[in-house]
């Protein structure tokens, strides 16, 4: 892979890694004995681990001059593997806290293993590690194929992919050391946040430069979703994380927003992390891989554009539904609630568009677990967006807020929609990227599919029961006007559901391990495809539109 970089790119990589290593060394020196210093060492080792392999191949010959005529898939390969590794890490932390909740005695009394530190390690591991890496890897695939153009440059894709890994590593390791700014899904401290801004802007510029090279007259809708994801996540991230560090040599910082402004900013960010990270980006995936796998164009392209603008317009206003019954002005809460209910229209239009695309291809859904992953993901997308609009209504929220119903909702989305879609996309993309006839074992894909779907269903049903029971127990009054149940009674009543949740989570996790094994065996052993090398067209005339032979 390093040999595919030009010598100039290898030199440039060495310079960047050297600068990164020096920054790490400085952080380690000024923050010695503190988590900041530990992060310095992490940065140093990260850069060193990349520096030496590049240095040892510096004198290898230049890549073939014809390489520029094919798609650049090396970072996609690494990205897919890293995404699956993060899936295992993130879900492992999730499983751990699930077992802790069911059997609290299992705790190993160490500060780093307390629930408050493991939980953000889980959420960041799965959302940003697994989901984010999958988004970056698939966006590199989709932007090239739909543009019929090679990635713009070979250095910046690696900078984005690996720089992002460094961000997630700093974030997750920081939480275990107690470094957090206590904002949900934005726990990472100021230096990690600054680094992410650099990576993210590079990502956006890379996307624009690749689109600028496109050989297609129209920018395919999947790219719009990916670009909305990159652009709006950048804005959300910057505004929500505006903070003043206590010192340049420590991890602690203070957010510039105060009081209810901070809460509003946090949930404007928090809900749009769901909207643009876990929805817009993933719809980009769906709009490319689902039609491709079903071999049918999207049911209504016009509808996909309408729902795009609907989702983008409405979602940015919905965040304040997280702050019902708080000090936030009542009309702002109502605004968030109203937009959340309106969101049902573009969300269901999107889910319907995906499912209608499968009309005429349902026999493929029956036979092909990869396509079935995507189909079930679209169904869970429809279910979860309906539930989300419903939960945002003030009266419903009075029952559901602070209960496990929220946990059920996010996992219907995160497992049923995001994770199932990523698995389907990985199974669809891996044979293409690695030039294999197929995945190593279709039977293992079936096993993975059923374990993942059943695990999700068990998990979500358990948490629905638990959440509604909690909510009802907390609001049941006696005739005398006092609360019927002490809080601890509701905690004890949760136990059977927490056990069921741990079982569902275990099923899902085992499915993921099977997926990793299948991925590994596909790369190692699946028969190579005897295929014409794909390459983007370089001419713009009609006859030369197809870079590949007709079917």
């Amino acid at each position, binding site marked *: 892979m390093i040999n595919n970089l030009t010598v100039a790119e290898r030199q440039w990589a060495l310079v960047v890694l050297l600068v990164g290593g020096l920054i790490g060394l400085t952080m380690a020196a000024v923050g010695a004995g503190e988590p900041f210093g530990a992060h310095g060492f992490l940065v140093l080792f990260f850069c060193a681990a990349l520096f030496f392999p590049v240095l040892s191949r510096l004198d290898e010959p230049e890549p073939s001059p014809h390489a520029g005529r094919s798609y650049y898939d090396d970072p996609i390969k690494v990205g897919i593997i890293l995404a699956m590794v993060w899936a295992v890490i993130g879900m492992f932390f999730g499983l751990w806290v699930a077992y802790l909740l069911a059997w609290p005695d299992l705790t190993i009394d160490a500060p780093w293993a307390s629930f408050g530190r493991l939980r953000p390690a889980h959420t960041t591991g799965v959302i940003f590690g697994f989901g984010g890496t999958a988004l970056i890897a698939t966006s590199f695939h989709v932007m090239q194929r739909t543009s019929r153009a090679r990635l713009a440059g070979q250095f910046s894709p690696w900078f984005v992919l690996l720089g992002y890994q460094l961000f997630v590593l700093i974030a997750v390791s920081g939480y275990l050391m107690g470094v957090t700014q206590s904002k949900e899904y934005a726990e990472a401290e100021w230096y990690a946040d600054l680094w992410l801004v650099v990576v993210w802007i590079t990502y956006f510029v890379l996307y624009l430069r690749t689109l600028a090279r496109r050989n297609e007259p129209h920018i395919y809708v999947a790219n719009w979703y990916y670009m909305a994801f990159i652009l709006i996540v950048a804005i959300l991230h910057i505004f929500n994380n505006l903070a003043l560090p206590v010192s340049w040599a420590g991890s602690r910082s203070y957010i510039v927003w105060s009081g209810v402004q901070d809460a509003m900013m946090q949930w404007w960010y928090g809900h749009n992390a769901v909207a643009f990270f876990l929805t817009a980006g993933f719809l980009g995936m769906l709009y490319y891989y689902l039609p491709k796998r079903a071999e049918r164009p999207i049911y209504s392209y016009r*509808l996909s554009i309408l729902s795009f603008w609907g989702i983008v*317009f409405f979602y940015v206003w919905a965040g304040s539904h997280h702050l019902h019954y708080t000090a936030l002005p009542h009309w702002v809460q109502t605004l968030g609630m109203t937009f959340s209910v309106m969101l049902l229209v573009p969300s269901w239009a999107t889910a319907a568009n995906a499912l209608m695309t499968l009309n005429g291809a349902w026999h493929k859904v029956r036979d092909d677990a990869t396509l079935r992953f995507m189909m079930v993901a679209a169904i869970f997308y429809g279910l979860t967006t309906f539930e989300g609009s419903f939960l945002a209504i003030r009266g419903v929220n009075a029952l559901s807020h602070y209960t496990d119903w929220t946990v059920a909702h996010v996992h219907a989305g995160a497992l049923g929609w995001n994770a199932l879609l990523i698995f389907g996309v990985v199974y669809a993309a891996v044979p293409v990227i690695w030039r294999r006839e197929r995945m190593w074992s279709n039977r293992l894909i079936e096993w993975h599919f059923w374990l993942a779907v059943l695990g999700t269903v068990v998990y979500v049903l358990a948490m629905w029961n638990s959440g509604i029971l909690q909510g009802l127990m907390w609001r049941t009054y006696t005739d005398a006007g006092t609360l019927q149940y002490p809080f601890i009674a509701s905690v004890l009543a949760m136990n059977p559901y927490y056990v069921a949740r741990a079982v569902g989570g275990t099923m899902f996790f085992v499915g993921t391990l099977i997926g990793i094994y299948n991925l590994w065996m596909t790369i190692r052993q699946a028969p190579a495809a005897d295929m014409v090398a794909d390459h983007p067209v370089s001419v713009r005339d009609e006859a030369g539109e197809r870079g*590949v032979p007709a079917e």
Partner: protein
Amino acid sequence: MEIDHYTLVAFAKTFGLFYLMVMAGLATLYALWPSNGKRFDRAAKSVLDDEEGPCR
């Protein structure tokens, strides 16, 4: 003029409504404009044969 909470509320409640409606109108016009149909159809179909993939 002093910009206080009520000024922002009034702005959000008036201009906010209209700009949302205008943007929705523009998006609808773009999506439904008849002459865009051909370009959309082409885009929707062209992703299906964008590479010689082994996973047919």
